[in-house]
């Protein structure tokens, strides 16, 4: 909820200002992020396309590497936005209204970056369209029994669903912004708002459509990340072939996604000057959610260890041993520190309502979560059944560059977004304010 003493008009002013008035800081950030995207993502990727996947550090037992870890990370980051927004919409939460738009945008862009990571990951991206069902002269269709095909279907659906969900929720705001802008912006918003007016019929239809979308999107979002987990869990690789993986990934995804929202909220609040709209209350609530997710995540992580430990099968045991005490052992303990211990600070209300510590914690959590994804790939595959084929995987420079570049790409997309989409939902924030009361009779009647 926003502060109660701001007026409807002020919200319009704030949002239009955030779209139209652009400071030098914005352009500098945009330039840097575009530069990073090109030098760290596009460039190395082209090198890799010419040379082959050999440019990355993957080798014989560890054929999957950081590209896949980044893919899961971005998909995970995408998980909170739309899911949280839909759940909170269905439960009529007031505090959702000031933050859901940018959370959804985060979803959308991280799904896009994740899709790019798939392109980077595969050996022959120029044939990636073969994983799409379309009639062709070869009469070949994709293999729908494959967990990777589930991924293709789920992520396509999720991306489509997220685009529609964010767009539909923004139509009234496009209309509000349309009236205040001129030139090309005006024409863009005319088209985007579809000629929305805000009549009773329109509101009614929007409400129903939006609610149905939310209902459809909640199970979808849960399915997407469990399907991503099955890429691993449906194999017979020790330490990956686990039933806990689906909930583990879903929880991890919501966890890192919520931390991502905290980061984005902080940046929006600070640089778009939404201090009166995004308040301590939001950080408090998000902090509680983070705490819950962190505890859940820790629990599932323990269960994962237990099954390996109790099974006492030599390959499970070896994989576990390698993860905890092997070459990447320190990374594992870093992950525990960042994702299981550090978030315990959230128990304190004072911590939850202070902005900078929350920002630092959210970034720390996401570093930990990236480590988690990296460890899943880099400590399971090198220790499989046959010890002769054991190996070691270290990311190459190209891989690290592309990982950094993917952050640049995400930032670029987000920066473009904040200048086109009203990043605060105008009408829903207004809804949280006290309803305007009719003025005393004396004032009315004047034409």
């Amino acid at each position, binding site marked *: 909820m926003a502060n109660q003493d701001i007026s409807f008009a002020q919200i319009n002013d704030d949002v239009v200002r955030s779209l139209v008035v652009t400071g030098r800081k914005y352009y500098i950030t945009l330039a840097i992020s575009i530069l990073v995207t090109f030098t760290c993502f596009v460039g190395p990727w082209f090198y890799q396309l010419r040379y082959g996947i050999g440019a990355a550090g993957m080798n014989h037992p560890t054929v999957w590497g950081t590209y896949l870890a980044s893919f899961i990370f971005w998909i995970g980051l995408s998980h909170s936005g739309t899911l949280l927004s839909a759940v909170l919409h269905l439960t009529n939460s007031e505090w959702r209204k000031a933050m859901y738009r940018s959370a959804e945008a985060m979803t959308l862009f991280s799904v896009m970056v994740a899709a790019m990571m798939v392109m980077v990951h595969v050996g022959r991206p120029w044939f990636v369209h073969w994983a799409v069902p379309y009639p*062709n*002269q070869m*009469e070949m269709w994709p293999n729908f029994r494959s967990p990777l095909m589930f991924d293709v279907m789920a992520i396509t659906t999720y991306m489509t669903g997220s685009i529609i969900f964010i767009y539909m929720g923004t139509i009234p705001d496009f209309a509000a912004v349309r009236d205040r802008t001129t030139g090309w912006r005006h*024409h863009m918003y*005319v088209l985007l708002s579809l*000629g929305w007016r805000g009549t009773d019929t329109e509101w009614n239809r929007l409400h129903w459509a939006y609610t149905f979308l939310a209902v459809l999107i909640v199970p979808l979002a849960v399915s997407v990340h469990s399907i991503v987990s099955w890429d691993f869990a449906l194999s017979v690789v020790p330490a990956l072939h686990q039933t806990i993986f689906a909930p583990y990934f879903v929880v991890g995804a919501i966890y890192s996604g919520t931390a991502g929202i905290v980061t984005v909220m902080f940046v929006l609040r600070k640089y778009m000057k939404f201090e009166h709209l995004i308040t301590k209350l939001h950080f408090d609530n998000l902090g509680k959610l983070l705490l819950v997710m962190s505890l859940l995540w820790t629990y599932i992580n323990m269960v994962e260890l237990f099954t390996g430990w109790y099974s006492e099968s030599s390959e499970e045991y070896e994989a576990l041993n390698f993860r905890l005490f092997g070459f990447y052992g320190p990374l594992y303990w870093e992950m525990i520190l960042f994702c299981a211990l550090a978030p315990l600070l959230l128990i304190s209300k004072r911590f939850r309502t202070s902005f900078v510590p929350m920002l630092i914690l959210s970034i720390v959590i996401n570093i930990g979560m990236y480590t988690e994804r990296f460890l899943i790939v880099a400590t399971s595959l090198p220790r499989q059944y046959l010890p002769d084929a054991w190996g070691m995987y270290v990311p190459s420079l190209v891989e690290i560059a592309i990982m950094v570049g993917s952050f640049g790409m995400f930032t670029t997309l987000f920066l473009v977004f904040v200048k086109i989409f009203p990043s605060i939902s105008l009408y829903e924030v207004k809804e949280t304010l006290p309803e305007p009361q009719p003025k005393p009779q004396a004032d009315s009647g004047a034409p």
Partner: protein
Amino acid sequence: MSVSIVPTLKLLKPAAMVVAVAFFGLIVGYWANAAFTSGNAPSFAPGYAPEQPIDFSHRVHAGENQIDCLYCHTQASRSASAGVPSVDKCAGCHQQVATDRPQIRRVLEYWENQEPIPWIKVHDLPDFVYFPHKRHVAAGVACQTCHGPVETMDVVSRQAPSQMGICLNCHKEHQVEFGTDCLTCHK
């Protein structure tokens, strides 16, 4: 005061035209690619008819004089590739037949110099496809099925676009045992 998206749409007419043309171009380009250049190289397109070192006419040999395909392309019934006849084969007849024509003299020149004629391959398959002529000749598939009416051509041109669908259709039509198994053609 009223609202409508039509004025903006009208403004966008030129842009829409560009998009429409680009879209149309994309579709035409896709179609052209699928129909003519599938298989990556321009030489895989139907209608490819390179100029050969000798103006050899299949119409005269196979059409008018009714020489069997397998008389010259003997390898077709024995091995995977149909093969091009050696100069010896040409000389076998043309030491007697029509020796005065300039083109024949050139053939005999090759023969006397003990050099092969540098024929240019017209029908080519991608390298990852294995097509045994032997099996198909043994199964009674006419050469014309894939190569077209060669006996009417003065200059041989490519007929079938060598696409997987064509192989598959034929195999399905004739109910070849395990004919759609990938390993039948790819190995």
